[in-house]
């Protein structure tokens, strides 16, 4: 065992040293690097993290020319100098031996993962030819871009310049979309990202399925620890005894899919007992009477059989929330696509916050502020006459962002018009979208499929052309002009050179645009010239930003009490307890509970969530992160495990209602979950051939999510709709 591990270790370290040398040689050949002067000693480079979209300020340390470690940047308001484990383990992305090295073009059929290595020129020429043909035949709107994170900004710009409005990210319809819609309908504004939640100052924090601590959004977790450390009352409703639940004064083991019943009962208690913030509601509320009247039937006793939460607990927690108002934060969550009524559930959360008067108040929701940094003065984008393809006839009237699954649908059906080209940037659609069969079928209708990524993900496997991007430690990205509790801008800049042929996305976008005759949209020589221009326009120093990584602005008021004027950009200009917008569109103007369909007998609802050491399905080949969590486990309640004869640590396969069988996954026998559901961490069970290290480890929830419900308000895809049974697996 020892000898094996040592070999493995030597292999990896030997490999990375070799890889770095090869990359350096390549850069030297292209004249980017000066001939060797072996670097000695330690230097630091401030940059920002990209292991998730939070973009914490980081300081990378390079020792003797090799990337050593990454620490937080104390100047950064998001991280306050402390990264999360993924950020700390970020150097593993640079050293990952499985990462993409050079542009690839497929040899035979899509999805076979048989490649020819090509030059950047060959790749660009191929793509340009295809894109020109698509534009001629189907119009520019027939090319869509799926893009996640700030790294996609220049690709978005390139696609807009090409003439397509069809730019999307799973972060809306597969994630936070319902939440943003629910809050928009109520307060007129989004919760945005990073969330405007004032967790640090909350006296009472209510988490509904939000698993802070496992969900490692840095600022939120830091503030959560502060709130807990300061003795704030934590109330957690979750079918699973999460990390957050372990910090809670009240843990409510709610039945899956019954959160709206719980929310209605809470609001019933707060309204009938007159515990709400009457002044606030009177000043800012619209349609309160109709809303209050609608709550009458939803007593705690009514909610008990639905939610499994005893009436006395519902009452006690409602009173506790009211006792700490307005510093009671009912957290809006982030990944909110659960049961198909998610926008309405999010609206119920927004309304509970409205009752407690927490919006705009300390310990509730602050008003985010930002620095004024003008955009680059580009020529105007060509105007699309056909409009976006994802939501024909505004079928989902409240979708304010582009729906990924809408584009997928249009690609499948050719309606309202055909989609013939996909660019996919930094999002592994096979794991991110529900029902992978639909995604794969849609891809079959394409004339062009381009994937830009750092690792050979599953979606890259379906591409015609794969473009290898430099990892964040080797590239510049667009300026991060953040909306937060204080204004700041942050820079991402290269720390070490890319080891092979990888290129930064700005270079890819600019080069591609030039091939397409769109060079006018990229008038700058390189990204530093672009930064110079924007920062000069804002009266800021690029040199300072380069040196510090962060420039902080002047603190501004963020609460109503500090002088922020309460504004609610809803049609009524007030907090809409009753929503005329919803009523006009034919939906319930106040939240209504619908009982979720029960699990088929003998099967268990599949729930999924996050691990603090991984981001989506994008980090399982990072050796430092995978070392901390190489595979996921399926959480099974002790009694259920006993019933099925399952022992802790054994492998099983999960089979869903449609007969889809997962990769083998270890059983975690635990008291920490309700018996009617099982839980796995998202992002595992890779099948991509190039992910040598991660492939075959753990089970993929995405693979098992063949069924989904679509939120009628905004087109979000609810994914907690699948049920599994246990199948034997070899040890």
């Amino acid at each position, binding site marked *: 065992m020892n000898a094996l591990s040592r070999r493995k270790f030597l292999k990896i370290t030997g490999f990375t040293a070799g890889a770095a040398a090869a990359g350096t040689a390549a850069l030297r050949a292209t004249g980017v690097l000066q001939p060797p002067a072996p670097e000695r000693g330690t230097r630091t480079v401030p940059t920002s993290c990209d292991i998730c979209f939070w973009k914490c300020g980081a300081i990378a340390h390079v020792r003797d020319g090799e990337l050593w470690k990454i620490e937080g940047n104390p100047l950064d308001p998001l991280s306050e100098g402390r990264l999360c484990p993924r950020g700390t383990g970020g150097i593993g992305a640079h050293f990952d031996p499985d990462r993409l090295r050079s542009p690839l073009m497929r040899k035979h059929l899509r999805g076979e993962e048989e490649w020819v290595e090509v030059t950047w020129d060959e790749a660009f020429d191929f793509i340009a030819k295809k894109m020109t043909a698509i534009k001629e035949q189907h119009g520019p709107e027939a090319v869509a871009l799926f893009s996640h994170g700030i790294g996609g900004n220049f690709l978005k710009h390139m696609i807009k310049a090409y003439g397509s409005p069809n730019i999307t990210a799973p972060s809306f319809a597969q994630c936070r979309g319902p939440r943003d819609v629910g809050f928009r309908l109520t307060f007129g504004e989004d919760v945005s990202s990073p969330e405007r939640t004032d967790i640090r100052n909350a006296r009472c924090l209510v988490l509904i399925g939000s698993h802070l601590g496992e969900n490692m959004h840095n600022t939120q977790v830091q503030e959560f*620890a502060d709130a807990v450390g300061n003795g704030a009352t934590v109330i957690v409703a979750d079918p699973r005894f999460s990390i*957050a639940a372990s910090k809670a004064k009240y*843990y409510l083991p709610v039945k899956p899919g019954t959160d709206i019943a719980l929310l209605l009962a809470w609001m019933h208690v707060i309204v009938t007992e007159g515990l709400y913030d009457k002044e606030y509601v009177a000043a800012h509320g619209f349609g309160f009477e109709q809303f209050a009247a609608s709550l009458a039937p939803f007593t705690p006793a009514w909610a008990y059989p639905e939610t499994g939460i005893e009436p006395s607990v519902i009452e006690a927690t409602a009173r506790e929330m009211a006792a700490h108002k307005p510093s009671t934060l009912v957290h809006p969550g982030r990944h909110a696509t659960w049961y198909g009524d998610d926008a309405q559930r999010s609206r119920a959360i927004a309304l509970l916050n409205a009752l407690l008067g927490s919006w705009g108040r300390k310990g509730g929701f602050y008003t985010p502020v930002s620095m004024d940094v003008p955009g680059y003065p580009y020529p105007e984008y060509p105007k699309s006459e056909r409009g976006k393809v994802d939501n024909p006839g505004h079928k989902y009237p409240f979708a304010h962002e582009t729906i990924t699954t809408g584009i997928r649908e249009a690609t499948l059906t050719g309606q309202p018009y055909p989609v013939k080209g996909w660019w996919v940037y930094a999002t592994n659609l096979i794991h991110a979208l529900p029902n992978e069969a639909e995604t794969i079928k849609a891809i079959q209708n394409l004339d062009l499929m381009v994937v830009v990524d750092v690792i050979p993900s599953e979606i890259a496997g379906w591409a015609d052309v794969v473009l290898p991007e430099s990892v964040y430690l080797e590239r510049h990205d667009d300026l991060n002009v953040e909306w937060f509790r204080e204004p700041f801008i942050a820079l991402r800049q290269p720390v070490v050179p890319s080891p092979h042929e990888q290129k930064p996305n700005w270079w890819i976008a600019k080069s591609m645009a030039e091939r397409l005759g769109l060079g006018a949209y990229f008038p700058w020589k390189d990204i530093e010239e672009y930064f110079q221009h924007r920062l000069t326009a804002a009266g800021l120093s690029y040199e300072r930003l380069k040196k510090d990584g962060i420039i902080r602005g002047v603190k501004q008021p963020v609460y109503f009490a500090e002088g922020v004027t309460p504004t609610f950009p809803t049609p009524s200009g007030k907090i809409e307890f009753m929503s005329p917008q919803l009523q006009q569109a034919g939906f319930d103007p106040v939240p209504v509970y619908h009982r979720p369909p029960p699990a088929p007998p003998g099967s268990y609802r599949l729930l999924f969530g996050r691990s603090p050491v991984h981001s989506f399905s994008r980090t399982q080949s990072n050796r430092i992160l995978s070392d901390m969590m190489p595979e996921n486990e399926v959480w099974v309640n002790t009694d259920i495990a006993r019933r099925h004869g399952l022992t802790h640590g054994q492998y099983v396969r999960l089979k869903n209602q449609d007969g889809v069988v997962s990769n083998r996954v270890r059983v975690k026998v635990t008291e920490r979950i309700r018996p009617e559901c099982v839980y796995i961490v998202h992002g595992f069970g890779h099948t991509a051939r190039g992910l040598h290290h991660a492939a075959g480890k753990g089970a993929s929830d995405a693979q098992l999510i063949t069924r989904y419900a679509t939120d009628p308000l905004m087109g979000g895809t609810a994914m907690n709709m699948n049920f599994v049974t246990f199948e034997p697996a070899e040890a």
Partner: protein
Amino acid sequence: MARYAMAIDTVRCVGCMDCVAACKTENGVPEGYDRDWITYESTGQFPTLHMEIRSERCNHCDDPPCVGCCPCGASHIHERGGVVLVHHDKCSGCKACIAACPYDARFIHPDGYADKCTFCIHRVEAGKDPACVAVCPTHCMHFGDLEDPHSEVSRILASRNSHALVPAAGTKPQIFYLR
């Protein structure tokens, strides 16, 4: 003299493993090995559960059995702060120290010698906190000198309830878990 110790707040800790990641990069811990780790200890039956989350590592015991049992004098107590260390070039890899540790905090490094947490003595001697403490996003870890009554650890241990791990093993561990 100094007596280095840690006080780790289990109330704040979310078990995110940032301490583990920081140790791996700071100290170049080889893949597959951990000098520190997280323990989640839950008691009770669903849904009436209690859970303590602990960031664990070598306890740098005051009475370290791993030092006494070493036949080579490789395992030793550092001159400063009572930190338990291993001279890699004196270690024969006999594993007695591993058997002696009730916390199983040690392992054999792929290069053959016994290895474990050093309290990041190289950082501490440069005036910094150990990497795990410095990185913790929940600020749940405190490092310092127990002999100095004004140090952060001394003050926090004086004001809060705490427990050490397996005190019955008699090794006088110097990592304290606040609750």
